[in-house]
């Protein structure tokens, strides 16, 4: 072979290599371009529902109070989020709303004051001027030319809707309604009907006893736990259910997979047919996947945490079986022989020769999956109807209380992070061999 041959060979190999390194990124790019077209990502911005984005964002950090005048009865009610539990009792309304001689005045902020009586609603909007809507018979008329209205005022003879950054007004035949926005999550601690609402924490802890029947601390706990708008008690139960599903599923699977793992390990089961069939069982339950197991099991067991537990248990039995049998095949034989040389019988050989070798490895795998199963349990709960996953999907499907959705999301993140931390701490302890 001449130098020239080697030279051409080498440069040839180089250029082929260079072609390969260029081809892989190009292939990936081509694939992504295909996805871009197939999923119509170009039209994504057109499909984005901007009003939904606004609802979600504003609900997440603020709440609204409805001031409503019913035309038929003439009653004015002030209610947080328009909910019955958030309705102020007559005489306890906040100071920014007042009714005098049939005229209601709502101060949205210092510059925006809306007044309304039975028929006339007026709002002096800074930078725009006075807007007056008058209800006469079955029609609503404005003091402005309906054709030159800005786009934040929508008008028809049946309905007027005004949206500004200060608040929102809606006038229909049946009611006049003003929405005032405020920062925060409303009534997070106590609902309005609780005697503890509106007191500072200091006053509650060190002040006089508000309810003669029970101490403030007990009453506060009851008021918070039974909060009818946020349902803290039920949410805590749901979180507990999700963690329970993950815990029972993971450890149940480990308990079932442990003996089966011996049957699938080459060095413990010389019978190839048995080993092979146990392994195929593992592959099957793993391959069927949590989704299908969840559907099948929820048909038999109905919605709830037990179904989620069993779905996790089945899928993970396959995963653990595979991991365990691999760990068992890597067991060091010298330790077993050492135990055998002292005259140990079969049970003792397993107890002192095999199990101490594999338990740290297995336990660390179990703990690792426990963390990821907390997330799976949230997802399975959303499908089968149990735990925090169910609450989350319900809150999202109703398209209403996005502050609750944010609350659940925060709780889920905290739960997953806590489990991650716990499993990390336990794994480090197991691996370093202390305790257990």
């Amino acid at each position, binding site marked *: 072979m001449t130098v020239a041959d080697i030279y051409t060979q080498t440069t040839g190999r180089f250029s082929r290599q260079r072609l390969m390194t260029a081809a892989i990124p190009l292939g990936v790019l081509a694939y992504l371009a295909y*996805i871009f077209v197939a999923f119509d990502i170009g039209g994504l911005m057109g*499909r984005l529902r901007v009003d*939904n984005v606004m609802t*979600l964002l504003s609900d997440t950090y603020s709440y609204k109070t409805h001031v409503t005048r019913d035309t038929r009865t003439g009653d004015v009610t002030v209610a947080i989020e328009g909910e019955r539990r958030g309705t102020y009792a007559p005489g306890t309304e906040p100071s920014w709303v007042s009714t005098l001689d049939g005229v209601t005045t709502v101060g949205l902020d210092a510059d925006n004051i809306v007044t309304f009586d039975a028929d006339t609603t007026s709002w002096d909007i800074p930078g725009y001027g006075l807007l007056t809507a008058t209800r006469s018979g079955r029609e609503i008329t404005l003091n402005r030319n309906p054709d030159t209205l800005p786009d934040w005022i929508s008008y028809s003879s049946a309905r007027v809707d005004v949206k500004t950054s200060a608040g929102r007004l809606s006038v229909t035949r049946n009611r006049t309604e003003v929405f005032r926005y405020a920062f925060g999550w409303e009534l997070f601690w106590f609902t309005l009907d609780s005697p503890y609402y509106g007191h500072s924490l200091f006053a509650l802890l060190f002040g006089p006893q508000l309810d003669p029947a029970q101490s403030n601390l007990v009453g506060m706990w009851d008021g918070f736990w039974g909060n009818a708008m946020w349902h803290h008690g039920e949410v805590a139960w749901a979180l507990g259910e999700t963690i*329970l599903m993950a*815990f029972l599923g993971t450890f149940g699977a480990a308990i079932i997979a442990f003996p089966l793992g011996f049957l699938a390990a080459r060095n413990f089961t010389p019978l190839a047919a048995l080993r092979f069939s146990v392994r195929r069982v593992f592959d099957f339950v793993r*391959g069927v996947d949590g989704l299908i197991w969840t559907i*099948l099991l929820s048909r038999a067991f109905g919605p709830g945490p037990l179904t989620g537990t069993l779905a996790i248990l089945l899928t993970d039995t396959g995963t653990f079986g595979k991991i365990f049998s691999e760990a068992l095949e890597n067991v060091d034989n010298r330790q077993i022989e050492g135990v055998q040389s002292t005259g140990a019988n079969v049970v003792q050989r397993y107890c002192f020769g095999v199990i101490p070798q594999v338990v740290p490895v297995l336990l660390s795998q179990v703990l690792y999956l426990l963390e990821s199963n907390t997330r799976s349990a949230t997802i399975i709960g959303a499908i089968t109807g*149990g735990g925090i996953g169910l609450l989350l*999907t319900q809150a999202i499907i109703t398209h209403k209380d996005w502050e609750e959705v944010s609350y659940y999301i925060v709780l889920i993140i905290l739960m997953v992070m806590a489990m991650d931390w716990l499993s990390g701490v336990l794994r480090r302890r197991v691996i370093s061999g202390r305790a257990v």
Partner: protein
Amino acid sequence: MADAVFSGVPPIPAYDSYLSLIRRRRLYSGLLLILFVAVMSAGFWVADDRNAGGFINGFTSILNFPMDVVEEAWRKRALIPGLLVEYFPALVETLNIAAAGTIIGAVSGFVLSLLASSGLAPWPRMIGVFRRFMDILRAFPDIVIALVLIYLLGGGPVPALIAIALHTAGALGKLFSEVNENVDLKPVEGLASVGASWAQRMLFGVVPQVAPNYLSYALLRFEVNVRASAILGFVGAGGIGYELKNAITWGPGKFDAAAAIFLLLFLSIVFFDQISSYFRERLTHGGAAR
């Protein structure tokens, strides 16, 4: 027997303390075991109690639904090949979500991991920030992101794609940064000494060292993402999961379609499991990786 051997010998202090240590350990392990059994059985009892149907009832009827499905599918077995073809595009959509999510997630995870590993990060002070960022990405279950995005964008594959890509970026970013910690820094320093930029140092100094490990993790993630993408379809993000939900909620009469979808899903999961474990084996145990 041990006593017979040691009976003429004066007691050794270390031996006694060793025995008491063993005894205490056994006591603790026993207590831990009892506690564990108690928690497990109490947990099962609570789960059973809060479930709509009981365990015993459910256990006896566990085969009813699969039997119905199999029975109807068998009755209409002539239709199954046609149904498999009909639902194949939905399967392709699910696989596309998983594949594109894995690619986008892996690339973002790669960048994040470089920013978060000591020795490679261009801004070493920001390492902690990027690590926490990856933790948060990882902690979001993909279903949460998908459901919120479905509300904002409407149904379809894009919400699932974004959800999977975000979660993958966090999960792979963490694994990649663990790989990065073991990188030999000499090639990087060599490149730095000839004036290479940060991007060039990473591309020519780090990537060749870590590529096999990265690919292996990304393949494993792809397996996971195929399953996740099917589940997200079930909650409204399109693909085979969505078709499955429709077939199941329709009930009897469409069980042949359900059976066909089960079959497609099962076969594709097993297929990609096998492919990915074959390539991972080749990548980790050397052997003609290229």
